[in-house]
């Protein structure tokens, strides 16, 4: 029982990270119907920025905040420079751009920082809590994710720009007729997605160690989470991400060797696509012709 609860909590912590990245994927998907395959590598690169700042002597949380700001601006710049030119191109063109972008970030990180594993500092003390049921690292990750989600929810629900972004994602033509600069909203969306990804990267790095391929597996779990939740639902991304995290941990503990854990993500993706293509919270897209 004790082991089960331990695995459950560490699954929730991992799931919170998958959920964050899944949310970043869903945000961009909703706005542009584009799956951003570079989301993981963008997060990895952000994490290297944070690592550089910490090594330069900045306190962890200062480095964290600066990294989020830089990631936001980077996300905006990527939308403006790389995504906008393919906005009206077939979706495959845009997908290829994001795949290319992912490769570029991966190579860039390898070139600047080498492919050696690096220690990444954790802001949370390494202490077991609640009779060793949960580590303070896991609890910290869950708390940071919750705070981030709360901020995002507040932004989208209660601010004028948040509402305008939802409108622009839903119906760009009507949004323009309301005077909403849709292009700027998309850029902000990419910025926010990059910021969410950066948070996920920084939270996972102390566990996984930092290297340019760090986010490959995480992105796969995030995809599984996003698909499980229904690729167009933010709530679905959260629930899906958490389910994937917990499943992965429990299955890895009780059923299969840890080395095969990533298979869980692939099996989940296939099962969702075959049995329930709209996911748990997604709505079927009906196109009238």
């Amino acid at each position, binding site marked *: 029982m004790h082991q089960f609860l331990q695995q459950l909590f560490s699954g929730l912590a991992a799931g919170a990270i998958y959920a964050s990245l899944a949310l970043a994927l869903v945000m961009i998907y909703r706005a542009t119907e584009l799956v951003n395959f570079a989301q993981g590598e963008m997060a990895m690169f952000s994490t290297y920025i944070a690592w550089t700042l910490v090594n330069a002597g900045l306190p962890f949380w200062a480095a964290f905040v600066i990294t989020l700001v830089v990631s936001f601006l980077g996300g905006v710049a990527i939308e403006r420079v790389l995504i906008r030119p393919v906005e009206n191109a077939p979706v495959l063109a845009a997908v290829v751009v994001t795949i290319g972008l992912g490769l570029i970030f991966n190579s860039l990180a390898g070139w600047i920082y080498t492919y050696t594993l690096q220690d990444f500092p954790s802001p949370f003390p390494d202490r077991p809590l609640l009779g060793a049921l949960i580590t303070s690292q896991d609890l910290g990750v869950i708390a940071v994710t919750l705070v981030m989600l709360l901020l995002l929810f507040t932004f989208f629900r209660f601010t*004028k720009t948040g*509402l*305008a972004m*939802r*409108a622009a994602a*839903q*119906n760009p*033509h*009507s*949004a*323009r*007729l*309301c*005077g*909403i*600069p*849709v292009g700027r909203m998309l850029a902000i969306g990419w910025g926010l997605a990059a910021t969410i990804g950066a948070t996920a990267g920084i939270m996972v790095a102390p566990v996984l160690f930092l290297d340019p391929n760090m986010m490959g597996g995480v992105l796969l779990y995030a995809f599984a989470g996003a698909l499980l939740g229904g690729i167009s639902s933010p709530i679905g991304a959260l629930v899906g991400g958490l389910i994937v995290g917990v499943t992965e941990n429990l299955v890895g503990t009780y059923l299969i060797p840890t080395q095969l854990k990533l298979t869980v993500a692939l099996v989940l993706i296939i099962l969702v696509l075959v049995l329930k293509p709209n996911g748990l919270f997604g709505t079927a897209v009906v196109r009238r012709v």
Partner: protein
Amino acid sequence: MAPILELQGVKAFYGQSEVLHGIDVAVEEGGMTVLLGANGAGKTTTLRAICGMVRTEGEIRLAGEGLRRRTTEQIAALGVAHVPEGRGTFIGLTVEENLRLGSYTLKARPEAGMERMYGYFPILAERRRQQAGALSGGEQQMLAIARALMMEPRLLVLDEPSFGLAPRIVEFIFTIVDRIRREERVSVLLVEQNASLALELADHAYLIETGYVVTSGSAKALADDPQIRRSYLGY
């Protein structure tokens, strides 16, 4: 009175093909102008040309200010509120959120405007927390018009507000639009298939066929024109 909106020699293009061949249209300040014509004549394209949604040539001016080189969102900010074909409501958002979005270009808070709109359309007040997609067709049309008015426009552009609605609802909507035009001092440009109702309320009318303005004049003159009576009014 000076026209609030002027189109001079406006051509419009979808890709390479020219669909408006140099039309002249004017909307008087505070007036209601209607564009009549068969399906595919170019009425909707004319409205899209005004809002910068198609490629155009010629002159389009709002109160003397050129609109042609501006983006759709800039034109909206200048005071052109366009209710497009199919209404263009945000069906996944609530009634209240739709109205809030209407006031996006304004600095002022939207509450006063929302209350005014609920005064014109009490049913929207009842449904303010509901998703716009759950509204009936008539209610969605009312929401679309209310949303457009939230930006306190100088020109309200309506594309077939009667489309798919029961006659009783259509009459209600037209009566309200006429009242709003007077009370909010907004000029209206209307595309409408229901020619008899439109000519009753409008002061000017244009008949568009295959991308040309073929007849124009006071709404009364067009309503009395025997050819228009036969083709568009059916009596």
